[in-house]
Structures are given as C-alpha cells and as structure tokens.
C-alpha cells in the first residue's frame, strides 16, 4: 500500500500536528498527544473524547465549537496511555468536572480509567460514558461487550451541544447516557485497511464476500455474506438496527412518527457515490416504516485507513435531543449551521 507519510512510527504525532493546523487557531496541541480548544469558558462542565489514531477525522477532529473540548490521542489503533488522558484532562478541566466519552474497547477503558484515577488524585471530578452503538457486536443484554463505531459522531455532536449549558457533571452524564442509548449502528466491510507501520492488511476477506456487522478493525460481526447490491444490503443492515431497538428492553421500538438523525458513514475507500446510492435506498426503507429523518449525515467520518465498508447509524430523537441537535457546531470532522 502506497502511503504518503514520513516515518511510519511517527504518523500519529505528525497527523496531530497537521490537525492543529487544520483548525486554523481554534485548537492547540497539549502535552504529548492531546488536542484542546483554545477557549473553554470558566466553570464549564468539560467534555473529553479520545481513542486510537488512524481513524481520522475522528476522534480528535470532533474537538470544536459546541463539540468536544479536547481529545486524548493514542498511537495508530492503540488507546492513549493514562498520562495522555491526564494531560488532556488537566487542559480541559474548568473546575466543574470532566466527562470522558469514548468507544467501548478494552484498551481504551483500561487506559482512560487509569487516567481518571490520576485525575481524581488531583481532585478533578471524572465521569465516564462509554459509546457502544454497534448492535452487531453483542446482544442488547450484553451492552458491555458492544463496540463503539460511527454512531460516536452524532453522539459527540449531541453531548458537545448539551455540555455548553450543562449545570453539572451529573446532568451531562445523564444526557450522554441517553444519547448513547438512543444511537444504534450496523456496519459492513468489503476490504481491509492497512497498518501504516507494517503495511499489513488489518484483516482478510474474500473478493465475493462482505463482512456483515464486522468491526472497524476486523472484529467478528454477524458473519460473512455473499457480495450483493446496495438495494439488497441496505434493508438487511437497517433491519438489524430496527430489531435491536425492538429487542432492547431499555428503549422503545422505532415506529411510525419517530424522528431520527441518520448517518451513512464510509470507512475510507468506499466512495461518496456508493454512500449516496445506499442512502437513497435507506430513505425508502425508513419512509415505509414512517420514520422521519430529521437530519442526514453522510461521508467518511469514522474510517480505518483505506478500508472499504459502510455503516448506518440511527439516533432516535426526543425533544431534548432535538434541541441539542439544533445547535450549530464547527470542527474538522463535522460542521453544521
């Protein structure tokens, strides 16, 4: 795989330097590998996101106006170590506590927890809300085993908006849990990305197969199915999401009249053309169900290098979430008027 990089072991650091430049002064680099907004109001309940690098534009591209206050960035596909979590925590903290919001992966959980322990030693109040939107990664009864995938984008957008006016860390934590609970995703992959340091593919898959529900690093999902058309696959994927809303005790079914945010995410090499063709079918399927799309997001938000694949994420809106959604936001990853 031909990649336009320099030292393959320095990509995570160099891309972060570039990201700071992409922000045109809105954000700055802090410590070893964190990015933080320059202006965070005093007493704000802070929002910190983060995870491994290599999935750009997330997570670090979601720092911005009415979004996250900062991000702790790990090396390629590796969770940020606790001291990076700590440096980012100190940089975003304004005395009213810090909410950690990130994807549910073992490495991330262990390292963010260790960072939280360090922060608490300095009397910084920390809460953690895990993102576990990937319905294909475990049944609704075992949410603790679910991975976080592209649904993180609408979730961070919503929580970032809510954090602007949150009175307390408790309040923001409760809101974030609701945003996560209301967001469900299913992805497919057609071909792997590669690890910059080794050039090796992240997984193998036959030319005539699609990995249904496969994770963004190649984690096992529902299983491999024969390669098919956009119009065949789209209802299959959405149906897994509908079934998950139905099967989950903690949330009501998706039904006629519901309003949602719909995200069609490309994992990298999958073209906007393909995403649009899939969106066209998705809107038909949702219309048949009477589900109204309040806003559509489409593009490569959560990627895994040049991996080919696509995912759908649905966030079910209520009045509180809708109000948060309405707030404009600006970042390298997502901007909305």
């Amino acid at each position: 795989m031909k990649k336009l990089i320099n030292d393959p072991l320095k990509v995570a650091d160099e891309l972060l330097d570039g990201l700071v430049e992409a922000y045109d002064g809105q954000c700055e680099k802090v410590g070893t590998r964190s990015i933080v907004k320059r202006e965070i109001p005093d007493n704000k309940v802070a929002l910190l996101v983060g995870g491994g690098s290599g999935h750009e534009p997330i997570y670090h591209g979601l720092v911005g106006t009415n979004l996250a206050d900062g991000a702790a960035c790990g090396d390629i596909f590796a969770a940020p170590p606790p001291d990076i979590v700590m440096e980012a925590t100190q940089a975003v903290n304004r005395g009213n506590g810090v909410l950690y919001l990130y994807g549910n992966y073992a490495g991330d959980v262990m390292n963010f927890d260790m960072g939280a322990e360090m922060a608490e030693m300095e009397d910084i109040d920390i809460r953690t809300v895990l993102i576990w939107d990937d319905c294909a990664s475990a049944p609704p009864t075992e949410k603790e085993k679910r991975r976080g995938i592209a649904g993180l984008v609408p979730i961070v957008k919503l929580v970032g908006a809510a954090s602007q006016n949150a009175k307390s860390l408790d309040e923001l934590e409760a809101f974030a849990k609701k945003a996560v609970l209301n967001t469900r995703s299913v992805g497919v992959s057609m071909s792997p990305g590669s690890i910059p340091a080794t050039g090796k593919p992240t997984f193998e898959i036959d030319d005539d197969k699609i990995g249904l529900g496969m994770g963004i690093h190649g984690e096992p999902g529902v299983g491999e199915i024969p390669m098919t058309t956009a119009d065949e696959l789209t209802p299959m994927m959405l149906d897994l999401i509908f079934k998950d809303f139905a099967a989950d005790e903690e949330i009501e079914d998706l039904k006629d009249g519901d309003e949602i945010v719909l995200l069609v995410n490309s994992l990298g090499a999958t073209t906007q053309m393909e995403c649009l063709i899939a969106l066209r079918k998705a809107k038909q399927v949702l219309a048949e169900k009477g589900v109204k799309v309040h806003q559509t997001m489409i593009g490569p938000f959560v990627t895994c290098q040049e991996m080919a694949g696509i995912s759908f994420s649905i966030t079910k809106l209520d009045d509180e979430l809708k109000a948060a959604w309405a707030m404009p936001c600006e970042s390298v990853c997502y901007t909305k008027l």
Partner: protein
Amino acid sequence: MPKDSLTVAEAKEMLLQVADKIIESEPILTDADRALGDGDHGIGMARGMNAVKEKLGDVDFESLDKLFMNMGMAMTSSMGGASGAIFGTLFMKGGKALAGKDTLDAEGLAALLKEGCEGVMARGGAKPGDKTMIDALNPAAEKAAEVLGSGLSKAAKAVAEAGEAGRDASCDMIATMGRAKTLGENSLGKPDAGACSIAIILRTISDFVE
C-alpha cells in the same frame, strides 16, 4: 553464586536484564500475537522495555516500590493500548506491595506477584482460563506464596517453572476477551502472547538470582 536477597541497585540491574531479554525476544512475541492477536505484542513490549531502560537508566531509587512503580509507569505510558495498561499495572500494583522495602527477598517476590496479579485482574476483568497473561502470572504467584520459605534463588526458579507451565497450559485454552480474530475455538493449540512475555520475565529473574 545464588543470591537470597537483592539490594535496590541489584534489583534495578535485574530489571534492566529483563528489559533486554524482552527486546531480544520481540520476534517470538510478535509471532505469538500474530497467530492469535493482531501481531503487535512484540513491538509493543519492546517499545515499553526501551522506555524502561530510558527511565531506570541512571536513576538511583531509594526503595523497591519506587523502582517497580517507575518500571510500570514507563511501560504504560510508552505502550498505550491494552497491554500497556496490563503490564504497567502488573509492576505498579506489584511495586506498591514493596512499599518502603530496600531488599528484595522471596517474600517480597511473592507479594509483588500476588498484588500485581490481583491488580491486573481488577484492571482488565480477565480471570484465569481466559487465555491471557494471567494464566502464566497467576500460577506463578501461587507458587511464590508456597515457596517463600525456601530463599529467593530457589523460589525464583520454582516461580519461573510455574510461569512456563502456565504459558504452556494457555495453549489448551479458548480466548474469550474481546480482541480481534482470536475469539473462540481457533485460538486453541497456541500459547497466549502475553503469557509468553510473563514466562520470559520470570525466567530472566530466576537466572539473575541463580
């Protein structure tokens, strides 16, 4: 001649040898993780051990806990990812058990491994039998508790053997922790990469005190 206790300086010397041994074993660890995991364990451990050499290098530590804490911190902060947390925790929590001590004996080794193993379990949520480094670390810790009367060099030898036996036993286990590609039946027959690291660490300790 066999040592039955180590000064802080000697213990540091030992840990530097552990670091070199792991760096030297990178290919073995890489292969082990490539077979079942994502193939980055060797590189990760090597990066961590190079950071350890950096950090311990020309510092004189006044007590063992400081020494081991620094080793764990160096690993965690340089490695990141799951294994940075796991192996860092092993030495940080294990080190705590030696608070204030300035000589390492068989009792100290037992305490180090016991606390370290409990720390890892608490941190990562894995239990014996999940096919992780715990399956080498836990039997080693138990053995250390049995033999703590027999002096450091004998104890270390028994502990190293227990760790190697645990590593070998991990071949027959099925991975259940949520890492890519390693899940289920097809993880049978090969040892866990982290367990291999533990076996190397313990063997190097034993050789040092022999």
